Every structure is written in C-alpha cells, then in structure tokens.
C-alpha cells in the first residue's frame, strides 16, 4: 500500500526542522566586497558529509582541495559546484552567477548562490550548505523542543570544530570568525528559520481560506520577541534610530505575508514546499522565518516549544480572534524598539496590551488547549513548555533581570554591553558598542560573550553535555532523520546518486553470470514522522544487504522505485556529463522508439499507396 493511499489525520505531530544561516568572515583578509563566501567555503569543507548531488562532484571537490590553498579554494569548489549544477539541470547559463563569485575570489568561475554544495551528514541526518555567502545549518527533523535545542547546540559544536580546523590552514594573520546572529549592522540580514509539520488543511486555512488564522499566528510572532529576541545595538534598514532593541530581525519585516525571504521579508512566510514527496497533498511545512538566532537554552527552547503549541492550536482551530493585533507589522517594530517593555499595541477589539500581556493571553488559551488533551501526541512535553513559558512571562512582567539574564539573550546582551559601556565610558553609537554586540554572538568560546557566561554558570541550561554530544554523533530516533543517517552511514559515498530530505537514491551493483549490471535504488521517505528508529533499526540490522533493507522499508511505507540503466553509459557519463540521469535517458530512448515506429508506419503507408 503506498503512502498516498493511506489516510492521514488532520492533526499531525509538530515535527520541528530548522535552517539557520550564520554570519561568517575572515578577519584580517580585508577583501573588497567582504569575505563571507570564502569563510563559508572553508567551513563547509571541514564538515564531513555526503554531497547531495553525484559522487563525481564529491571526488573533484576532494581532489581540488588537496592541491590548493584557501586562496584558490573558491575556484576549486566552484568547478565542482558547476558540475553538480549542470547535473541537476538547475542552471543553463552560468555567466549570470559568475560575476557574483568572481568579486570574492578573483576567478571568473560559475557560482550558484542558493543552497550551494549541499552535504548531508551521516552522523546525525542534518545537512550543511552555503546560501548567499552564509554557512547554513539545516538541523535534522526532531519531535520535541528539547531535541531541537540539543540538536542546535550540537550543530554549533560541529561548526566550531570546523572553524578551528579551517583556521589552522589559513595564512598567519587571518582568522575565520563565525557569528551566531542575524544582521551585520550594515543592513544585511540572514535568517534563522524554523519549520513545522502541519496538515495540508491547516496550510490552506492559514493562507487560502481563514485570514484570522494567519493574523492570530502573526500576532503571536510579533509579541513573542520578548522571549525570542537576541538583542541588537542600533537599527538598520531605514528604521528610526534606537540605541538598543530586542530583536535582530524586526528592522527587516516589511509586509505581513509573502513567499519571499530575501527582500521585503514577511512576518509569516507562505512558502509552499512540503519536502514530503508524494504526500504533498496531505502534509505541508510551515516555514517560519521570523525568529532570531538565540544561544540561551531557555530562549531557544521556548522559541521552538511555544511555537509548536501555537501551531497545533491553529491546526485544531483552537484560536481566539480577539487577540489579533490591528497592525502586527507596526507592533513588531514598536515592541522591539522598547526594551523597557512598556509599549502598548492595539488589538482589533480596540484594547491595548503590552507584549507580555498579550503573550499571557496566548498562554491562558494554550493552557486550556493542553488541559483538554489536545496536545497529546502532537507536542511532546507540552506541560513543561507551558510552565517555563508562564514563569518567564511572569519574570518579564516584573522585569526580574537576575532571572531573565540567565534565560533570554536580549536581556543578557543588554546587561553585559551596558556594564562594559559603563566601565569604559562608551557611547551607544560608537563602533566599539556594535563590535561588542557582534562579540556576544561569536562562536569562538575564547571571545564570545555568551560562551564566557555559559562557562561561568551565568546562564540556565536545559540540556546537558551528554544530550548535546549525542546529537553531534547520532540522529534523532523519532523522525525520518534516523533512516537518512543510518543509510548514509552504510553507503559508499561514491555510490550515492542523490540525497534530499524525502529521498535517498543510490547505485546498486547486480552481479550476473558474466557481467555486472547497475540499478538505481531509492528510498522514499515522504512521511517525516515515519522511518524512525523503532521502524528501521531491526530491518537495517537483519537484512543481508542495504538494497533488501530498503526494499522492505519501501514496501512497508512506500512502493520501491527501481530504475535500470546501462552500466557502460553510466560510467561514461560519470567522466564527462554526469548530468544525464536515468529519467532523461529513458525519455531519450522513448523518443528514439517513437521515431523508428513513425518510419516503419510511413514505409507501410507508401507500400499501401503503391499497391
């Protein structure tokens, strides 16, 4: 029975994914136009993973690096990147992208700026790539907010290790700096996106049918910055001047809803890309681009956990339209620019509330939702999330700085910067203040202010070292990330044809009596809540071969997709044009067959006409 024919409920577990961009540059290089791409390339190289494209790309990628230093590195990577893109048929004309790359590296080479050189990690099932000059960390799908937090800090650890390795290879005087923030202070912002599994019906309600659902969510997001903000010195993007504000991203929201993410950023992103293969008509992904990169455990935990509950409430239509803000866009900016938390925003009922007061109302509603058992099987640890949310809101209400600075990034940052400024008599608009803002989010534990506080026990930790380290080396057990990681571990990297969130495709050797044939085997993982440890562990252990295991997993969850192709042509294509996929080859031969059939028919027609 295929996944498509199964019936799926309209209430789904709120699986969390994340794609998070980091700030990265090379200190001391001083290249015109910035060094973000070079820094991201160097970091990406140091992270072990399997290319999402063909093994061919992976080979060239390695070989090129062995002979070149980072100075030329951009060129080597671009060459293999172009191969990959040609393979995928993503770009036909590289010249459009080459200009972007050449100013960074000095080489006229092709470069595709989005999701470039994607590598999946066999260690934990997540992936990394370069997006618009930023190293982007895509965390594996997890079920709970606690797992998300552990996985997030695990990825930071992986990046830090890459940073140390990359720095060793740089010339003296140069150093890669990684910033876990969302803006550079010059008007450039980069995202920290969370993704939630929702039903297709919920997606349609949000964006096509029920406007109040969208506004309810936008109101929650706008007021949530009081506990999800990372804090920022100054303002950008033409916004009114302010010394310090709560959110990194508030300056960049320019509309309520939209599909775009790089310009006129919306509060609620409407991107319709489920990453669930054939289940696209049943499942959807809520791509939430609103949040900041937070380092504090409580802030990161609440950001994921509370949003899980709110999204579940929207899915089950458990909402209160009276909470909707009259203008969420204006509210985001007003709330962000007032760290004293006294600003009031007006709801559609005409009443005005402070941000934490509105959050309190969301909390009350969420409390009823959970008490009725509606979060069971949907949001793990909902009770724990509610109690921490309630306590944090209470602390915000009385502005208990002692507790809040241990939980929320913006409060901790404000406190630290304020103290340093007092001691050194710094002004808010000085470069030193902005530099300290960046220093807070530096990934380097020796100068990152957050890490210094963490080492000295000044922040509240929700997950321990063991849990974080577990996610560095292991995938989450409760989602399809488990199967992805386990299969990638068992595969020879050169046999991997393609990897994506919902599918792994690899080459299998079939030995016959006198010859060897090859076929492509794929595992379709359309259901993010399927292919868990419980479902896959025994199958993977007990099967004679990976192909057999995949066949069992496919028949239990989806039909097997096996496409034969000629081995010799595949080897040729690997050397020259690895882009000719089995599908294209199939189409080519079909056209050829049709032409032959046409010729035969014409001959017959001629014979008949003569006779």
């Amino acid at each position, binding site marked *: 029975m295929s996944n498509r024919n199964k019936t799926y409920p309209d209430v789904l577990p709120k699986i969390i994914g994340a794609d998070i*961009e980091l*700030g*990265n*540059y*090379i*200190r*001391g*290089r*001083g290249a015109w136009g*910035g060094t*973000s791409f070079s820094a991201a390339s160097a970091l990406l190289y140091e992270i072990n993973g399997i290319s999402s494209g063909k093994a061919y790309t992976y080979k060239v990628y390695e070989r090129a690096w062995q002979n070149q230093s980072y100075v030329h590195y951009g060129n080597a990577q671009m060459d293999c990147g172009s191969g990959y893109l040609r393979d995928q048929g993503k770009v036909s004309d590289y010249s459009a992208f080459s200009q972007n790359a050449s100013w960074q590296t000095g080489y006229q080479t092709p470069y595709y700026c989005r999701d470039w050189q994607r590598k999946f990690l066999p260690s934990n099932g997540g992936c990394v790539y370069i*997006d*618009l*000059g*930023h190293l982007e960390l895509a965390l594996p799908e997890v079920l709970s907010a606690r797992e998300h937090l552990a996985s997030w800090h695990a990825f930071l650890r992986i990046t830090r290790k890459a940073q140390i390795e990359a720095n060793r290879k740089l010339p003296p005087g140069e150093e890669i*700096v990684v*910033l876990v923030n969302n803006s*550079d*202070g*010059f008007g*450039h*912002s*980069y*995202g920290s996106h969370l993704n939630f599994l929702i039903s297709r019906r919920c997606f349609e309600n949000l964006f096509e049918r029920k406007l109040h659902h969208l506004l309810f969510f936008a109101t929650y997001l706008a007021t949530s910055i009081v506990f999800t903000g990372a804090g920022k010195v100054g303002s950008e993007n033409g916004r009114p001047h*302010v*010394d*310090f504000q709560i959110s990194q991203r508030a300056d960049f929201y320019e509309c309520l809803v939209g599909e775009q*993410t*790089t310009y006129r950023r919306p509060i609620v992103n409407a991107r319709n890309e489920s990453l669930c293969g054939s289940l696209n008509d049943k499942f959807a992904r809520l791509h939430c*681009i609103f949040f900041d990169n937070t380092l504090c455990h409580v802030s990161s935990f609440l950001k994921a956990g509370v949003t899980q509950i709110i999204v579940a409430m929207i899915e089950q239509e458990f909402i209160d339209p009276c909470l909707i803000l009259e203008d969420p866009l204006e509210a985001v900016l007003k709330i962000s620019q*007032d*760290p*004293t938390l*006294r600003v009031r925003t007006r709801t559609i009922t005409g009443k005005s509330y402070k941000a934490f007061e509105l959050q309190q109302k969301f909390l009350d509603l969420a409390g009823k939702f959970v008490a009725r058992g509606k979060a069971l099987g949907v949001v793990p640890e909902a009770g724990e999330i509610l109690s921490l949310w309630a306590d944090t809101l209470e602390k915000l209400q*009385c*502005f*208990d*700085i002692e507790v809040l*600075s241990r939980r929320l990034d913006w409060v901790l940052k*404000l*406190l*630290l910067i*304020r*103290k*340093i400024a007092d*001691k*050194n008599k*710094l002004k808010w608009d*000085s*470069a*030193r203040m*902005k*530099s300290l803002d*960046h220093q807070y989010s530096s990934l380097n534990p020796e*100068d990152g*202010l957050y890490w*210094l*506080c963490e080492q*000295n026990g*000044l922040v509240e930790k929700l997950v321990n070292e063991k849990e974080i380290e577990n996610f560095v080396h292991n995938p989450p057990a409760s989602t399809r990330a488990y199967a992805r990681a386990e299969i990638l571990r068992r595969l020879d990297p050169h046999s991997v044809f393609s990897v994506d969130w919902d599918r792994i495709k690899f080459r299998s050797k079939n030995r016959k009596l006198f010859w060897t044939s090859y076929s492509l085997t794929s595992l379709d993982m359309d259901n993010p809540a399927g292919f868990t440890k419980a479902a896959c562990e025994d199958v993977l252990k007990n099967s004679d071969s990976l192909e057999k295991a995949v066949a069992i997993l496919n028949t239990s969850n989806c039909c097997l997709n096996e496409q034969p192709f000629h081995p010799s042509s595949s080897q040729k294509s690997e050397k020259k044009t690895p882009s000719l996929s089995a599908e294209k080859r199939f189409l080519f031969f079909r056209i050829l067959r049709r032409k032959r059939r046409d010729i035969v028919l014409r001959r017959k027609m001629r014979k008949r006409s003569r006779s």
Partner: protein
Amino acid sequence: MEERTRFARREVYFDSEQDLGVSHNAGLEQIRAQASEIEQVLEKIVKVPTEEQARKELLDSQQESGQ
C-alpha cells in the same frame, strides 16, 4: 507579598520615567544589574577593542544579504 517585592524591584530599574514622558533610552540608563558574578566575569575576560580595532572589525564583518 512576593509580587509586591518584584514590582518594587522593577521600580529600581525604571522609576517612573516613562510616566513622565522620558524616552526609553533614559530608561536603559537605569538598568543596574544585581548579579555581581557578571561583573567579576567581565573584569577577568572581556577584551574591549579600541575604536580603531572595532571599526576595522566591523568593516571585515560585512555580510551578504541572506534569507
């Protein structure tokens, strides 16, 4: 009683400047951390860059606009 203490503590940070129409930046001036450990930590470890170093660092740190 506990609530009252908390509200009283809040007054330490902000007084009633907002009610008098003072900007929020003036409110920020009043933030005084009670956590003495933070001061101790900062004294030990934070290297504050000079104005020139900070400017150079900020120029280096320019990013491309992302998502």
